[in-house]
């Protein structure tokens, strides 16, 4: 009997398609709707200690096979976020609280609040590529990463996931530093920019942003494969997944589950349902009962 249910990073999911952080997950009603329309779980927008407006638009640039964004970590601040989690929890599926901070103490404070709000796990944003002092600036320092993960693992009862950046010289070094996490989420966006030739200007108000979408899938696959080949840790694949084949490729590279973000632009919120239905057909046709049978099968 085919089942899409997976256990990953210390939690159970009825299907492996998770909404990636930063997409449609700032407010509770939207997260609830995404869950109702088929996602197995949602990761919240990254929440910090203080309220932030983010950058002023343009915050996105759309290409044929990619999106570059520099939202600038907009968020209502952790104190205002409990209400959103409460609304989203009516979706009756796991909510993973994404948090960003510049150091151990703030990460712990945010993680503790998220736990109090009732999330199923926290995802540490160690990888946002476009805000000074946060994200990948924290996540490219293995000593700091080890310290943050160790502290949160030692203090929180809920699982801790670490979302890592591909914008480092060795993803394996950072993954090793974060290996105590219940899961590694690979990858965040690839640092990028867009120039408009007509006006001779960078398009994003912040000039630099992070690239996502189909074009970065090969980078994501490489990171998942490279890490799973060396480390015994659950991996959640993310980066350019827009159909079930993309998801299978990530699973075969070593991911136990996957996240979807940019594909929502072309396929809408229905993308989660579509991909999980297609996966189920694939499993039936190939006599695969559990996706876990396929995790890492491509690794040589």
């Amino acid at each position, binding site marked *: 009997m085919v089942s899409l249910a997976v256990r990953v990073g210390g939690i159970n999911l009825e299907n492996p398609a998770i909404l990636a952080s930063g997409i*449609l997950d700032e*407010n509770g009603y939207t997260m609830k709707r995404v869950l109702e329309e088929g996602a197995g779980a949602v990761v919240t927008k990254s929440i910090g200690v203080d309220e932030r*407006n983010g950058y002023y*638009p343009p*915050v996105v640039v759309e290409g044929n096979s990619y999106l570059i964004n520099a*939202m600038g970590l907009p968020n*209502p601040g952790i104190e*205002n976020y409990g209400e959103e989690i409460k609304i989203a929890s009516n979706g009756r599926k796991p909510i993973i609280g994404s948090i960003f901070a510049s150091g151990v103490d703030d990460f712990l404070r945010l993680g503790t609040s998220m736990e109090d709000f009732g999330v199923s796990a926290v995802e540490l944003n160690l990888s946002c590529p476009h805000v000074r002092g946060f994200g990948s600036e924290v996540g490219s320092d293995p000593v700091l990463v080890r310290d943050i993960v160790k502290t949160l693992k030692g203090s929180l009862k809920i699982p801790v996931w670490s979302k890592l950046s591909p914008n480092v010289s060795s993803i394996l070094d950072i993954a090793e530093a974060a290996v105590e996490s219940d899961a590694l989420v690979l990858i965040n966006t690839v640092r990028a920019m867009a120039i408009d030739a007509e006006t001779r200007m960078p398009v994003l108000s912040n000039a630099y942003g992070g690239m996502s979408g189909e074009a970065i899938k090969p980078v994501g696959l490489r990171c998942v494969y490279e890490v799973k080949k060396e480390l015994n840790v659950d991996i959640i694949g993310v980066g350019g997944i827009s159909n079930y084949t993309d998801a299978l490729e990530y699973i075969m590279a070593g991911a136990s589950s996957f996240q979807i973000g940019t594909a929502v632009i072309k396929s809408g919120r229905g993308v989660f349902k579509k991909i999980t239905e297609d996966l189920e057909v694939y499993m039936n046709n190939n006599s695969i009962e559990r996706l876990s049978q396929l995790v890492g099968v491509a690794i040589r």
Partner: protein
Amino acid sequence: MINHLKIERKEVNTPTVSSLYFRWDRKVKPGQFVMVWVPGFGEVPMSISSIGDLKCITVKAYGDSTRKLIRLKEGDFIHLRGPYGRPFSEPEGDILLIGGGSGMASLRTLIGPRATGIIASRTSDELLFSEEFEKEKRIEVTEDGIRGLKGLVLMGLDQVNVEDYSCIYVCGPEKMLKAVYERIRGHKVRAEFSLERSMKCGIGICDSCSINGYQVCVDGPTFSIEELGEMTEFGTTKLLSSGRRVQI
């Protein structure tokens, strides 16, 4: 994909509102919008206020980007992406358009011989596109009362029988939309409202403009009266730039 389009004609509509006309080889339907980039200043959503051979945006100066935009001249270029959003349904038969302030800009493409307009604004010199309605199908309402009826938009609604129309199209500040909604709810008439919320991406991913889990930029900006009826946030709460929920 950013389109660079030359301003063919500029029209001053009111002391604070101007329209910029440009040639753009794209099919645009009534109610849709574009994201207009003002390099160095920002990017703003604007409804398309003319969909013929010449397309048009109607700009009200209220922030850095729009103040810059409204100063552009014929021959200058505008930069935009789109069109985005779910359009209004095709009008058929007699229709009623209710526009508050610059809200009439997104309804303008529906103006025709069978359209009656309730045109509302705070001051009389801000009445927008009123003269584009047939003379006998124009109901002006202003708070200063120098032109038209003195009062709020509902006073205009008192002048018509809403069930005489095949559809009512409404655009303006959300408080006004809510007031109109409350008034016409329960009547036997179709109605569609165009919502305005703080919008950033325009393509349905950033969650800035969401209302009860719907993204105004892709699921809207037009919503039917039935859809609004299920939205507890309509007319009550909205999201700030940070995503913090506040009372309207």
